[in-house]
C-alpha cells in the first residue's frame, strides 16, 4: 500500500511539474507579450479539416516539444561525450526531486472521508492515512538544500563537457552564482527554523495555521529567500550564466534538441519548486486564513462563525489553496523576469556575499533576540537541554 501510494504521488507530481514547464513556457510568452503591448505567439495551429485550432498560442508549446524531439541531436566534437549527455539529466532531475518533501495539502484520513473532522485524529494512527507529500524525511527542508546543490553540477558539467569557451565561462558563472546564493538561501531559512522549532515542512505549515503566516514573523527572510531562489533558477535578472550578449547562451550553448529542452524545462520546474517552497515556509502552505482543520472558524470583531466542513472538503480546499498560491508566486516570478534588467556579474556576487549573506546572519540574530524577548530569558542553567 505504501509503495502504491508513493508511486501514484510521484507520477502525479512529476507529471504535473513537467507539464507545468510546457504551460509556463506559454504563460511566459503570453505574459511578456501582454506586458509589452504585443500579442505573443499565436500562429501554430492544429488543422482539423478546414478549422485551425490555435488555442491562444498553447499549440506553440506542443510544436516546441515536437521540434525538440526531431531536431538534429548535434554533439560537439572533442567534448566529453558521457558527461555531455549526463549534464542535462543532472540539471533537470534535482529540480524535480525537490518536490519530494514539499507538502501540498492536508493529510487525508481515508476512513473518515464522510465525517466531520474530529480532534482525536490528530493523534490517531489507525486507518489509512495519505499524507499529501511524497516523502516524510527527518531532515525535512535540509533535503531541499542538499538536492538543490546538486543542480550546480549539471550546469558546471555542461559547461565543461561542451568543449567551448563560452560554455565553460557560462558553466563557471553558473557554479559560482549558485554556490554563492545557496549560502544565503540556507541561512535565510535558519530564522524560520528557529521560530517553527522544526525543519519539517508539515510542522511549519501547522505552526503557521496556529499562529500566523511566516512572512509576518520573518519578512526579511522572505525577501532574502525569494531573491536567492530567483538567483538559483538562473533567470533574469540573475541570468549571467547564459548572458546572450557575452557568452552566447552560456553553459548550454552547445546543446540542441531535447537536451536543451531539459535545461529549459528544468529552469521552469525550478520556478515552480521555489514558489512552492516560499509558499510552505512563508505563506502558510495549504492554509487559508480562518480555515482550520475543522472548517471555517472566524471569531473576531464580535462575529462568531463556525462552519464545519466534511473532511474531504477541507482536504480539497487545502489542495486548491496550495495550487493557487504557488501559481500566484510563479506568475510574480515570471513578471519579475520581464520587469528587471539583468545584473552585472560583479553586482550579482556583491549582492550575494556582501548583502544577502550578512542580512541573513543579521536575521538569525534578530530572530534569536526576538524569541528570547517573547519567551523570556531562560534562567542560568536552563540552556542545557
Amino acid at each position, binding site marked *: 500500500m505504501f509503495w502504491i501510494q508513493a508511486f501514484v504521488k510521484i507520477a502525479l507530481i512529476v507529471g504535473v511539474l513537467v507539464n507545468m514547464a510546457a504551460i509556463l513556457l506559454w504563460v511566459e510568452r503570453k*505574459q511578456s*507579450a*501582454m*506586458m*509589452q*503591448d*504585443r*500579442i505573443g505567439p499565436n500562429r501554430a495551429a492544429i488543422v482539423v479539416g478546414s478549422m485551425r485550432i490555435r488555442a491562444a498560442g498553447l499549440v506553440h508549446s506542443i510544436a516546441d516539444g515536437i521540434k525538440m524531439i526531431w531536431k538534429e541531436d548535434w554533439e560537439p566534437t572533442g567534448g566529453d561525450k558521457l558527461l555531455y549527455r549526463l549534464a542535462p539529466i543532472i540539471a533537470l532531475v534535482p529540480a524535480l526531486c525537490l518536490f519530494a518533501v514539499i507538502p501540498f495539502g492536508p493529510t487525508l484520513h481515508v476512513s473518515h472521508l464522510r465525517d466531520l473532522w474530529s480532534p482525536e485524529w490528530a493523534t490517531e494512527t489507525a486507518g489509512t492515512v495519505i499524507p499529501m507529500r511524497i516523502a516524510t524525511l527527518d531532515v525535512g527542508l535540509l533535503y531541499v538544500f542538499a538536492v538543490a546543490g546538486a543542480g550546480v553540477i549539471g550546469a558546471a558539467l555542461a559547461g565543461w563537457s561542451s568543449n567551448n569557451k563560452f560554455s565553460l565561462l557560462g558553466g563557471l558563472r553558473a557554479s559560482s552564482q549558485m554556490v554563492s546564493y545557496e549560502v544565503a538561501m540556507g541561512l535565510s531559512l535558519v530564522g524560520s527554523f528557529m521560530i517553527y522549532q522544526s525543519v519539517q515542512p508539515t510542522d511549519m505549515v501547522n505552526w503557521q495555521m496556529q499562529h500566523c503566516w511566516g512572512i509576518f514573523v520573518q519578512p526579511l527572510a522572505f*525577501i532574502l529567500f525569494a531573491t536567492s531562489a530567483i538567483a538559483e533558477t538562473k533567470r533574469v535578472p540573475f541570468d549571467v550564466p547564459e548572458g546572450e550578449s557575452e557568452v552566447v547562451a552560456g553553459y548550454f550553448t552547445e546543446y540542441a534538441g531535447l537536451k536543451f529542452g531539459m535545461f529549459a524545462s528544468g529552469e521552469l520546474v525550478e520556478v515552480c519548486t521555489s514558489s512552492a517552497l516560499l509558499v510552505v515556509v512563508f505563506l502558510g502552505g495549504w492554509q487559508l486564513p480562518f480555515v482550520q482543520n475543522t472548517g471555517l472558524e472566524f471569531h473576531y470583531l464580535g462575529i462568531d462563525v463556525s462552519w464545519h466542513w466534511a473532511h474531504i472538503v477541507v482536504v480539497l480546499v487545502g489542495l486548491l489553496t496550495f495550487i493557487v498560491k504557488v501559481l500566484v508566486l510563479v506568475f*510574480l516570478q515570471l*513578471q*519579475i523576469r*520581464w*520587469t*528587471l534588467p539583468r545584473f552585472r556579474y560583479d553586482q550579482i556576487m556583491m549582492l550575494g556575499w556582501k548583502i544577502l549573506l550578512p542580512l541573513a546572519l543579521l536575521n538569525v540574530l534578530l530572530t534569536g533576540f526576538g524569541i528570547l524577548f517573547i519567551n523570556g530569558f531562560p534562567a542560568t542553567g536552563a540552556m542545557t537541554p
Partner: protein
Amino acid sequence: MTATTKVIRKPQRTMADQSYVIELVKGLGVTLKHFFKGTRQMVTGTTPDLEKHPYADGIATVQYPEEKRPYAQRWRGVHRLTHRDDGSPRCVACLCCSTACPAQCIYIKPAEYAEGDKRRGYERYPEEFVIDELRCIFCGFCVEACPCDAIRMDTGYHMTALDDRASFIYDKAQLMSHVGQDGTQKSANPRHEPGDPTHPGVTRLHGGH
C-alpha cells in the same frame, strides 16, 4: 576670460532606492498595469484599430497576412505602367525616366508606330520596358520625370522575396499588369490623343518648324 562651469551633481540614491525592494515593487506595478490592460484588451477584443489610429496606446501588433496597415498615399511601391483607354501603355518612350534614374535600372527599347497609325510621327512606343527592381532604389525620380504620367509607383506592393534574381527583372507585360492602389490601371490625368481637338498637333515629322 573665465570659463563658466556647471557642476552636475551625481544623482544621490536614497537608502530606499539602494535597497531595490521598493523600486522593484514600483516596477512590478508598472508592468502589471500594462499586463492587465493588454489582457483586458485581448480578452474583450478591444485592441486599438491601428488602421485609424496607428499610434494608439495598447496592443500594437498587426496580424499581418490577415490585417494590413495601409500605406501612405504617396508611398513608393513597385512600379506600374499606366494604360490608355485602348489598353496600350501611356508611355511614349521619351526615355526621360531612364535618363533620370540614378540607379540606371530602366531599359527602354523605343519603336515607331507602324505606317498609317495615327500616332505615327507624334510619339513612339516602348517595344521593351524593363526595370530591374533589385537595382532600383525606389527614389521615385522616374515618376517625377515622366511627362505623360505613364509610370507610377502607387501600386501599394512592396517587393516580395523571391529566390532568384531573374524574377526581379520586370518586363513590360509584368509592369502593365500591376494595379494602382485606387484599383484602376489608368491614370486620372487627361491624355490627348493625336487627332483630338485638344492635341497640340506638333510632331517631329509633320511639324511646320
